[in-house]
């Protein structure tokens, strides 16, 4: 049995990454159980039960009201001890990366991070900034294996299937050593594009800085971040922290849309690990089309406004 650790969004909703993790677990074939950590009863358990899992485990304790690594680790040790899964899958989120290595180590198990696929008994994960893929497996086949699943690597989708049984598991974590205050939002100093699931990038093809507005509209329509190739940042049209490429950031989002970017190799190495690449360029010979999954040869000043219109009239 494979256990999926569910992560919730702060508003008490299922994090889409959790659904992706369930999808990943199901690909492995064995029965899937999901564990939810909450402070008090919410409709989440029932919603979770219909997502194509065999079993839902719920750990409910006041200490789970606000995340802290030590409480999470203690609770999950107890849940895992109870459920005895072969594998534990978690989404590769900031929060998971904060506690999962501790959890795995405490249970004398490996944590294979940032998994994008499975190969036999092994897990496939990127290494060297996506230049190579690695097949990794546990050194000892007898232990539990923990794996974090790369965001966007699997397609997760909310379902409304038959409800699986929900089981309450007792956990008794000691109070956290950490005192965490409430999370707050703030304009970020620097943009961390490596965390964006959708990126729309502008290249020299946009010709003038005022045309960035057009590309931004597309980014907004898709719910993504705006980025650029080096010439745009060099000219000061966008700050350097929006630059993708060998002298900027390396990203591998779920969707990368390259608008007016020719695809010089310095740029490609920064984004070709993206799950889906869409390129819009007027030059059919542009190298960007070699890495693109979908290519549109056309005038971006015509295509992009039409695309924004089409997207806005068919909301997700």
């Amino acid at each position, binding site marked *: 049995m494979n256990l999926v650790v569910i992560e919730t969004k702060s508003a008490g909703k299922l994090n889409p990454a959790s659904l992706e993790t369930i999808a990943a677990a199901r690909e492995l074939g064995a029965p899937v159980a999901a564990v939810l950590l909450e402070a008090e009863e919410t409709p989440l358990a029932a919603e979770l039960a219909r997502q194509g899992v065999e079993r839902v485990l719920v750990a409910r304790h006041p200490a789970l009201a606000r995340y802290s690594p030590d409480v999470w680790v203690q609770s999950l040790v107890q849940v895992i001890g109870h459920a005895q899964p072969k594998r534990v899958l978690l989404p590769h989120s900031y929060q998971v*990366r904060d506690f999962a290595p501790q959890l795995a180590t405490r249970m004398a198990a*490996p944590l294979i991070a940032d998994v994008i696929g499975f190969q036999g008994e092994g897990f496939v994960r990127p290494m*060297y900034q996506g230049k190579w893929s*690695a097949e990794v497996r546990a050194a000892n086949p007898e232990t539990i294996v923990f794996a974090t699943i790369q965001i966007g690597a699997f397609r997760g989708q909310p379902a409304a299937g038959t409800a699986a049984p929900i089981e309450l598991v007792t956990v008794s974590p000691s109070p956290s050593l*950490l*005192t965490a205050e409430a999370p707050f*939002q703030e304009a970020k100093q620097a943009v961390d594009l490596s965390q964006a699931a959708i990126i729309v990038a502008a290249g020299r093809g946009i010709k003038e800085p005022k045309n960035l507005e057009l590309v931004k509209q597309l980014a907004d329509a898709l719910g993504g971040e705006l980025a650029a190739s080096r010439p745009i940042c060099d000219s000061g049209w966008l700050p350097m922290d929006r630059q993708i490429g060998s002298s900027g950031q390396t990203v591998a989002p779920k969707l990368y849309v390259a608008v007016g970017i020719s695809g010089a190799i310095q740029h490609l190495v920064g984004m070709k690990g993206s799950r889906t690449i869409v390129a819009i360029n007027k030059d059919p010979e542009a190298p960007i089309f070699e890495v693109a*999954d979908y290519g549109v040869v*056309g005038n971006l000043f015509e295509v992009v406004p039409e*695309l924004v219109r089409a997207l806005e009239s068919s909301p997700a």
Partner: protein
Amino acid sequence: MCLKQVPAKDAPLRLAADQRSIREDVAFEINEPDAFALETGLRLKEAHGGEVAAITVGPARASQALREALAKGADRAIHVTGDDAPRLDPYAAAEAITRAIAGEKFDLILTGLQSDDAGFGQTGVIVAELQGAPHATIIMQIEPAGADRVRVKRELEGGFFQFVELPTPAVLTIQSGISKIRYATLMGIKQAKNKPLTTVTLEEIGVNPSLNRQVVEKLFAPVKSKGTTMIEGGAKEQAAKLADILRHQIRL
């Protein structure tokens, strides 16, 4: 603070004969996230006094990275060395660090978020577990908060942040890009030669790849099985088709 020496950003990486590692005949440099961790440590020292020690688990070549850390202002360095160092997984590396610093008392252990080569992103947190110390990750600010406590600012997803207080000794993994990394000055480089650099072998502390909990079976070029689907038509048509693909196939 813990640092790792990784292949230089644009070094051409070629597969070694065993197909499960990269050839070593490339240029190396300090892992960039670790450079931010070092910078954080040096700023803490400048603001609050104290001492910064740099440690790395790496083969002979990694001493260069430690010397750079000393040149930038670290007071001393510890090189846990052995030919097997590149083959250690995060757990074994964390064990090596823990054993090498056994008997020392550090208020804070700082690491970078992850290494730019293997990118496991776990060693810092595992060190915390092995040390029995509390930890926090993706830290942007650190301030003392009374005796034996620090208040740190964590970065969360989606533009959220959070302040957390925890007792020391603690392990913190540092967010990249939080400040400009300082340059090593000429005098710094000269003075680095006279700062203590102790060497501990992996053999001495009983760490080797048999401690690994995970194993890289092989490395291969990422498989790109799909071809390019060109979308035909005039602008309006192309836009419509593409919007359709984006909404339904990619499920945005």
